């Protein structure tokens, strides 16, 4: 008050509208909160967490770490080398789950991976032995890796390897197989397995050569450009894919590989608009993991789904999962598929929203707003709403349509509970039945239960006041 001359007072008001009215009648500018009660039952935990004296600084620290992280593509190599994955061990998307509760597409992808690894002869055998517990699996997140949709990784699959040179940390993701009938959507027919073999025999080694020659490739810089070119980094990766290909091309051409192989690799990459998604995801994982583990921070550092459960992690509680039932996306369906054919939400790709792009950057991707069931105005409003759920912005990723504001970054679990507004995720939809593949794409939200449980956990971890 000592530095505010009369007439310059502006007041934020929350609650009774009459107080804003009386301020305006005195000529005072007001900004009124569009206040709603917090999610019922969460009041006590929210109060404890909001009153945690560490919260503001901890969230700033988590945001700083996220936005300071680096992410460069440094190598492409098989999972057994990159992640030390042993034969018979597999990774999958989302929080932990056992075979019994697993959805069709995740089971299908594991079946395909077991077949691909040559551990069995037929899908039927694979299913039997998986059900018998002959093979082990765990979330990719547990090893710092991520996978789209089913996210299944087996030792022979080739992985993108990204490095954060600021925090000296690595993350990995498999190579994108394309759209339609593919393993990550739970398909395991012979053509799916054949494609995986070609990826292991030709694509992986060629990209390894190109990456080792051209790299490290600054993935965050490509993302910064792609989001100014109509990509939001989750459901649209067209510009990013071409920019990555551009980085590789000279090295591919000079590689001495057979011309037909080089051409096939270029055709495969350029023919799949989502190829770059599998590079964006580990880059986002490097960002979010950099912000993880700050005591008192309410920032969400993981959102991931396994087709049955939606799981989140929050910075203040490190690697603990908080889960709720995965929802079915709303959107558009391919061919004759409809809502009954869609599996609940699946995949680690919500790491993009966790890092501030995907649905959060919807405003920058008007080309796909109709595909995910909305108008351009909806897209702008979505990004604006996401700013209000986040602790800050990522200045490295500026959105031209938002007057070059940075992407909304660092979902605050308390803001979700307080406003009842959920993070928006852009997503593909897998068929409910193993083997079907992709049935559509659309929008989905996490279940509120995840955030309720996470804030409950954060409240229990608030140190008693002295």
């Amino acid at each position: 008050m000592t530095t505010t001359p009369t007439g310059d007072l502006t007041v934020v008001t929350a609650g009774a509208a009459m107080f804003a009215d009386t301020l305006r009648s005195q000529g005072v500018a007001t900004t009124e909160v569009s206040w709603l009660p917090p999610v019922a039952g969460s009041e006590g935990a929210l109060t404890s967490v909001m009153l945690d004296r560490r919260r503001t600084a901890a969230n700033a620290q988590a945001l700083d770490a996220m936005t300071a992280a680096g992410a460069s593509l440094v190598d492409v190599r098989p999972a057994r080398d990159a992640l030390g994955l042993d034969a018979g061990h597999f990774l999958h998307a989302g929080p932990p789950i056992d075979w019994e509760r697993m959805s069709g597409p995740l089971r299908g992808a594991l079946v395909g991976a077991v077949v691909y690894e040559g551990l069995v002869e037929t899908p039927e055998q694979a299913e039997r032995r998986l059900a018998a517990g002959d093979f082990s699996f765990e979330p990719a997140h547990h090893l710092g890796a991520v996978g789209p949709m089913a996210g299944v990784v087996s030792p022979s699959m080739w992985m993108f390897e990204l490095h954060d040179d600021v925090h000296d940390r690595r993350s990995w993701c498999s190579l994108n197989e394309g759209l339609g009938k593919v393993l990550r959507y739970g398909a395991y027919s012979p053509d799916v397995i054949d494609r995986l073999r070609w990826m292991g025999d030709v694509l992986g080694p060629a990209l390894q050569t190109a990456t080792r020659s051209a790299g490290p490739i600054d993935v965050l810089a490509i993302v910064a450009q792609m989001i100014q070119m109509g990509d939001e980094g989750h459901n649209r990766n067209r510009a990013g894919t071409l920019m990555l290909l551009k980085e590789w091309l000279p090295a591919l051409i000079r590689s001495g590989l057979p011309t037909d192989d080089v051409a096939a690799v270029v055709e495969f990459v350029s023919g799949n608009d989502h190829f770059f998604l599998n590079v964006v995801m580990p880059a986002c994982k490097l960002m979010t993991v950099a912000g993880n583990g700050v005591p008192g921070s309410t920032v969400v550092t993981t959102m991931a789904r396994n087709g049955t459960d939606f799981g989140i992690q929050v910075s203040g509680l490190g690697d603990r999962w908080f889960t709720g039932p995965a929802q079915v996306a709303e959107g558009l369906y391919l061919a004759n598929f409809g809502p009954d054919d869609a599996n609940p939400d699946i995949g680690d790709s919500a790491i993009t929203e966790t890092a501030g792009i995907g649905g959060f950057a919807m405003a920058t991707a008007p080309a796909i707003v109709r595909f995910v069931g909305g108008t351009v105005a909806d897209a702008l409003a979505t990004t604006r709403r996401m700013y209000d759920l986040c602790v800050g912005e990522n200045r490295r990723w500026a959105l031209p349509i938002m007057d070059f504001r940075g992407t909304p970054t660092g979902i605050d679990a308390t803001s979700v509970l307080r406003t009842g507004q959920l993070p928006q995720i852009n997503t593909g939809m897998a068929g409910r039945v193993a083997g079907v593949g992709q049935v559509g794409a659309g929008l989905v939200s996490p279940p509120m239960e995840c955030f309720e449980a996470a804030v409950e956990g954060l409240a229990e971890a608030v140190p008693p006041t002295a």
Partner: protein
Amino acid sequence: MTRTVEVRSGAYRDSVGLMQISTQLRTLPGVEAALVAMATELNVELLDSMGFDRPASTSPNDMLVAIEAADDDAVAEALRVLEAALTAAPAPGGEGATDVAPPTVLAAARRSPARLALISTPGAVAAIDAADALGAGLDVMVFSDNVAVEHEIALKEMAADNGLLVMGPDCGTAVIDGIGLGFANVVRPGPVAIVAASGTGAQHLMALLDGAGVGVTHCVGVGGRDLSDQVRGRSTLAALDRLDADDSVTTIVVVSKPPADDVADLVTAHADGLRTPTVLGYLGPGRPDITATAQRVVEATGATWQQPRRWGGDAPLPRDGDLRGLFTGGTLCDEAMLIATQQLGPLASNIPLAGGTRLDADLASQGHTFIDFGDDQLTVGRPHPMIDPTLRLERLAVEVADPSCAVVMLDVVLGHGAHTDQATDLAAAIRDADTPVVVSLVGTRDDPQGIEAQAQTLAGAGAIVHASNAAATREALSLLGQHAHKDMP
């Protein structure tokens, strides 16, 4: 001539933005040439042609910064301006920034230059919103009541961590830079600043000062529990420091119930260390009433004290029976009881003084009875009686029909936020009643309701109206028959 070339990797910016920054740097004194651009082939060649040394190796994802200037200082200044331009938040503008209603205090704070938040959300969750305001770097006034005391302490600790101020909880009134927040009277600007643990007490003091021609620029409410043993004056001390730093303030007044002894010592010691003279206006048994405190403050500013006004006709003859006080302001009710107890002995109330009788939940009168309709327990799920007079009007009808009731005393608090015309509602009930009604009217000339108009309406209906609550109480007491007094058999 000094030249510098830097390569910053991983710092992608769009070319238009960088061209704007380059242009800005070139206009700085002493700067001959400046190029800030992504290290594309074209830009590296441009660098060459400007006569800068080409950096060893660059990629198009690197940012080039090249400056040629008269001396090292000019280069340093250019780099400083560059950093500022690169980190500056873009001006919020267009529909992008403001189109969605802010769902939280933080979201609202980001859309506004505000440094203060006024929270009036339900008490059970108000601490959440107040903590959000503090996290956003705002001072906060918590109007909400029924906030747990441990949450109050936590909020005030958070505020102290960040050099911020918590007003409240249960802070009914504040004036900041002459602007009224919550229930606030329109007072003339002036040299007095108030720190108030009491809402209506502060309003009454401000109104009395205004009536005496002395202005108030700030009134910082701290909440009724601030000077308790538990909260230990956290906001009072912070407010004293803020007000002491304001050169327009020449006199500070603290208005509160008497603090716990060691908290009183804390406040006294703190006040002694301020450069601004501070009046400790504690209210309680054996202490000056609010009107006497107002006189002290007026005289401390060098102005001349005038007795507060009275409206209405001659006093009627004393009547036997009970005094019934129906209040909307807790401190006004307290003060009236303190004065009345001296004549009447212990009183019955829903907020009894020490030695008084606590009313049953149905609030039925027991002899001389005072009810504070603004008490927390009567405002759960219901607007404050200063906004919604229904409950008190109902009770007034009961009292004037009660043969054991000799005199009714009421308070009417004017100002922003208060009912637009309580006097008219009350006047209808007063006009029809035989029972004398004495009103303590807290307000100013410039209040939206206008003290003069409200006083005329009430007096016109037959009420006796005082601008001083203490004077109103004394006149009400004088209307009671002799055997109502405690020293009579």
